[in-house]
């Protein structure tokens, strides 16, 4: 009998349908993988099972009993423990204190340290770990901390353990330790739901795999019956025609050249170049290091080594201010908290990068500021009620146009745009694509980092694919399709021969 039965679960967030009508069942004692592209709904589903989110509709049965999971406590009572991507440990407390944080053994009101440590030791021994209950969690390596999280889950005597990208921060050796532990857990009869982007792990570890795509359930297969290619096709397989198609235009000289850019733990030996007029995509799965690479070019992350040359001049990479002066524009993926200045007016938001150039004797020129606003309003078809309107009251698409305009206002030669259409509606999406294409035509070099493959395929002339901090794909327009990109993004194959057209 199935230990977990998920029936018709749906969940919406403002503007997005994260899960629609998902049903699947998990057998007792299996290691079951949940896979899908970025935004397929895996994490949302797990958070619903773990009590972090509430489903809008649908039912969850555990061992045939209908469950009402409204909180993390409810989930624990039902026997479900979730180990989230981000570790939830208290670094200033010991291993034992962390493991038993939600149910400390006590003598009256006094903490019973001896019992706590003894129980922790038992647990650690049973997991075959080399930890002491009295170790400070903050002093442990990331993988050891991960093990503490797992010990915590086991201490709740949960039968079902959900692991959301547990290997994200682990090196190969540490992954082996985790594998061994998962196998032991399986032998002791626990059921494990395993979420990962890394296909290799799925084939190494799991019995069955369920695929989600765009919030919908696709299929459940026995892992041994699948090949890597089958799995990738199940994960992507989407009609591409419905998306915007770019018309080609001639490219100019190389503008930006990145050589051997490295930052330990983030990315390694990254080299590529962008030509004037080129729209270069950067694809890769979450956590692969693609954002970090472009953030380093903009000076938000200091690289350990490597060079960036713009228009033949090597950049000093001292920080964003220097980058703006050097001619690099940047639009963040985190529009709400790192992009807009929510409580300031649209006009103030537009000119934030270029205040000096529109000032005379230190005073900002009203006329020049207004003129800029009118220009961009016309050019980008921005919609707002008055120059004094707070930007937070605009739609996502209009906010995005303002961020783009802010970057352009400083006369950049290279534009870096992360997730250009995240959280904006279909109409505004098309407008942003048209704008990007127009800008490229006028000679701007544009780097688009995106989680949406169709977006990259339809607007970019060429795309880089990043896997574990390295470039594993350099695909020209003709080679770009979802399957090839996913193969590079999951480390299944490497293709570095792509040229700019």
């Amino acid at each position: 009998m199935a230990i977990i039965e998920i029936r018709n679960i749906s969940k919406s967030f403002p503007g997005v349908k994260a899960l629609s009508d998902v049903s699947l069942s998990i057998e007792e004692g299996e290691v079951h993988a949940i896979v899908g592209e970025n935004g397929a709904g895996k994490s949302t589903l797990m958070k619903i099972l773990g009590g972090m989110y509430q489903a809008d509709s649908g039912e969850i049965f555990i061992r045939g009993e209908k469950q009402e999971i409204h909180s993390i406590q409810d989930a624990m009572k039902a026997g479900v423990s979730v180990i989230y991507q981000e570790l939830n440990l208290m670094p200033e407390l010991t291993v034992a204190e962390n493991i038993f944080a939600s149910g400390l053994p006590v003598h009256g009101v006094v903490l019973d340290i001896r019992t706590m440590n003894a129980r922790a030791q038992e647990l650690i021994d049973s997991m075959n770990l080399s930890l002491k209950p009295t170790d400070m969690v903050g002093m442990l390596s990331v993988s050891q901390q991960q093990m503490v999280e797992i010990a915590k889950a086991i201490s709740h005597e949960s039968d079902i353990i959900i692991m959301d990208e547990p290997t994200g921060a682990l090196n190969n050796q540490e992954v082996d330790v985790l594998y061994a532990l998962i196998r032991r857990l399986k032998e002791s009869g626990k059921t494990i739901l395993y979420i990962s982007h890394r296909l290799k792990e799925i084939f190494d570890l799991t019995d069955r795999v369920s695929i989600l795509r765009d919030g919908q359930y696709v299929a459940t297969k026995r892992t041994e019956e699948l090949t890597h290619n089958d799995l990738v096709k199940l994960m992507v397989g989407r009609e591409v025609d419905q998306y915007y198609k770019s018309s080609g235009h001639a490219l100019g000289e190389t503008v930006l050249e990145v050589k051997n850019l490295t930052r330990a733990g983030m990315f390694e030996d990254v080299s590529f170049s962008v030509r004037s007029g080129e729209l270069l995509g950067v694809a890769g799965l979450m956590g692969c290091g693609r954002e970090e690479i472009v953030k380093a070019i903009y000076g938000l992350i200091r690289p350990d080594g490597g060079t960036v040359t713009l228009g033949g001049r090597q950049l000093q990479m001292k920080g964003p201010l220097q980058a703006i002066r050097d001619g690099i524009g940047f639009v963040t993926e985190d529009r709400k908290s790192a992009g807009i200045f929510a409580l300031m007016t649209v006009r103030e938001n537009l000119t934030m990068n270029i205040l000096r150039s529109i000032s005379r004797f230190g005073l900002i020129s009203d006329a020049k500021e207004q003129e800029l606003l009118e220009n961009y309003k016309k050019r980008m078809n921005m919609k707002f009620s008055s120059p004094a309107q707070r930007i937070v009251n605009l739609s996502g698409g209009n906010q995005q146009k303002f961020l783009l305009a802010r970057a352009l206002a400083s006369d950049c030669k290279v534009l870096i745009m992360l997730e250009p259409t995240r959280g904006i509606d279909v109409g505004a999406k098309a407008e942003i694509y048209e704008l990007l294409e127009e800008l490229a035509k006028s000679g701007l070099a544009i780097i688009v980092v995106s989680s949406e493959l169709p977006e990259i395929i339809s607007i970019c002339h060429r795309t880089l694919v990043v896997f574990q901090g390295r470039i594993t794909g350099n695909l020209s327009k003709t080679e770009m399709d979802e399957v090839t990109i996913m193969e590079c993004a999951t480390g299944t194959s490497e293709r570095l021969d792509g040229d700019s057209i």
Partner: protein
Amino acid sequence: MKKKLQINFGELGILYALLIFWLILIAFSPNFRNISAFQNIVREASFTGICGVGMTFVIISGDLDLSVASQVALCSCVLTLLLPKMGVFPSVILILLLGAVLGTFNGVLIAKMKIPAFIATLAMMFGYRALAQIVNATPVVVENRLFKLMSTSYLAGIPVPFIVMIICGVIGTVILRKTALGRHTLAIGNSHEAARIAGISIPRTQILIYLMVGLFTAAASIMITSYLGSSNYGMKDGFEFTVISAVVLGGTALVGGKGSIFTTAVAAIFLATIKSGMDAFQIQSYMQRIIEGVILIFAFSINGIRAYVNDFLVKSRSRRELDERRRGSAAGA
């Protein structure tokens, strides 16, 4: 129409409150039926208001400065030492410079040594007060008549300190709205991360903000010293809270990101009016302190209250709509 009202309540509410309060006082107390009562109120308010210009910048940037009262005392003690030796004009310039130095020191602690503003300025609140005691262990009386006239004279019936406050307020507003420094202050208050991406140097901006606080606080100290006619290291204890309440009552959010110097000034007058009203009705001083405390709590919770009121309005509106729909469907049936 409704939207307009909301904006007015949020941003000019304090102005309406002040006018209503004035009408009540004039109606119920003969003491307020002459011009000199109001001259005294605005003079008293200008001390808070001048210092409040700098404090508005700090709070917009998302921080607090608890050391301004001690800065006032230290500047005042040094000022009374300088006055007999070098006369009014050089002393005033030197005190403004001293204020700038004190403020910059705070700024460096916060921006460069990364000490949270609350802690850094709390430490300097004690530090500057102690320095004031070292400078002047006993009260010093100001003999210079010209210096005393600075605060006691009038221009067209308006007390000079009030004119100084207006000048400071205009300078502050121009800096806030029309210069890169002002925009950067607002930007930092909105989001440090977004400011960083926009190429704004956060430490540089913070140091400049605290430098300004020092300058405006020194200006307030000069006016206060002139009006009191003496200095004393224990003077103006608790003044920082009066200033912070004025800024917050004026609608500047404690979390930063928005604010206005004009409403800070209005709130300063509001607070001075309450003080003067309590004096007129002979409310005893311990009671006055309790009332001041209540106002402070009100000021600090005003955002919470506003959210609660909005929430209540939204809920009652949706309840009303629901009722109407029900009634509609009942009528239809």
